[in-house]
């Protein structure tokens, strides 16, 4: 995958590597309040390791100084209940002090381009419905409620 740069964002997008782990863990912890080192080590191993095709993708947006300003993770999943395989956005984070510059849009656009090479025509994601920032971001990027709905049950 080529490195892409958008003028207005001041960042470049490239595939993540194992060396990005600590920066991704730190950025994720800044936003979620929890440092999940083992989780991200596993994600990076599975999404950036050798042999991964266009069906798994982890990208980072880096500033001119190499600092990670954001990242996105996505994959193509086969799906039951009547759906053909589609692209899933599993994670997307942009550093709070770098928001409102189009970095999230750039990352999502690059992820979509990568997943499209895997021959899917739809992307999906799942966001907490009260998460106004992410909900309005994905809405603004053209995602809308689809034909599937998340159902869950508390296990006693």
């Amino acid at each position: 995958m080529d490195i892409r740069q958008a003028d207005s964002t001041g960042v470049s997008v490239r595939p993540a590597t194992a060396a990005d782990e600590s920066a991704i863990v730190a950025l994720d912890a800044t936003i979620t309040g929890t440092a999940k080192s083992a989780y991200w080590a596993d994600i990076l191993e599975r999404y950036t390791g050798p042999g991964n095709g266009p069906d798994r993708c982890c990208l980072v947006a880096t500033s001119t100084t190499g600092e990670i300003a954001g990242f996105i993770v996505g994959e193509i999943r086969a799906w039951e209940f009547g759906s053909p395989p589609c692209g899933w956005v599993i994670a997307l984070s942009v550093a709070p002090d770098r928001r409102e510059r189009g970095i999230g849009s750039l990352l999502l656009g690059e992820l979509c381009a990568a997943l499209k090479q895997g021959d899917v025509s739809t992307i999906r994601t799942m966001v907490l419905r009260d998460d106004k920032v992410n909900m309005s971001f994905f809405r603004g990027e053209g995602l809308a409620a689809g034909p599937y709905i998340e159902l869950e049950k508390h296990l006693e």
Partner: protein
Amino acid sequence: MKLQKASRYALYAVLHLASSPDRHYSTAEIADEYDVSTHHLAKVMRTLVRSGIIESVRGVGGGYRFAGNIRRTTLWDIIHEFESLASDIEARDNLSRPAHIVVSGLEIVTGEIDGLVRSTLDSITLQTLLRYGIEAIEREYHAAEARAGSG
């Protein structure tokens, strides 16, 4: 979902002002554009000014202008100034057991629906909604062109 008239008028007015942020519109102009009551819209405009979503502009060429952030203000930010959209099914203390079961079950379902409605409205910014409108018009235009081309 059926919106109250005040919510609908507020959405018309705020979206109209937000779509042309450099222009001012009078209540009469907006009422005329959407074919709604000027009197009723005037009351809605006063509420919107108090909430800070729009502001009045005095003097010649005065009227109202959008005062929010088009990328941040959501449909819910406007609607909740006028109504809660919450269902009115509520279990009272003195219900019999069978009635309590029925009402409690309905409360769960309507609560789920209320949550979905509210989160949907709160996720759509004015900018996104205006883009939906532009895209819908473009699709209609291209469909009409295609029909004309094949006819």
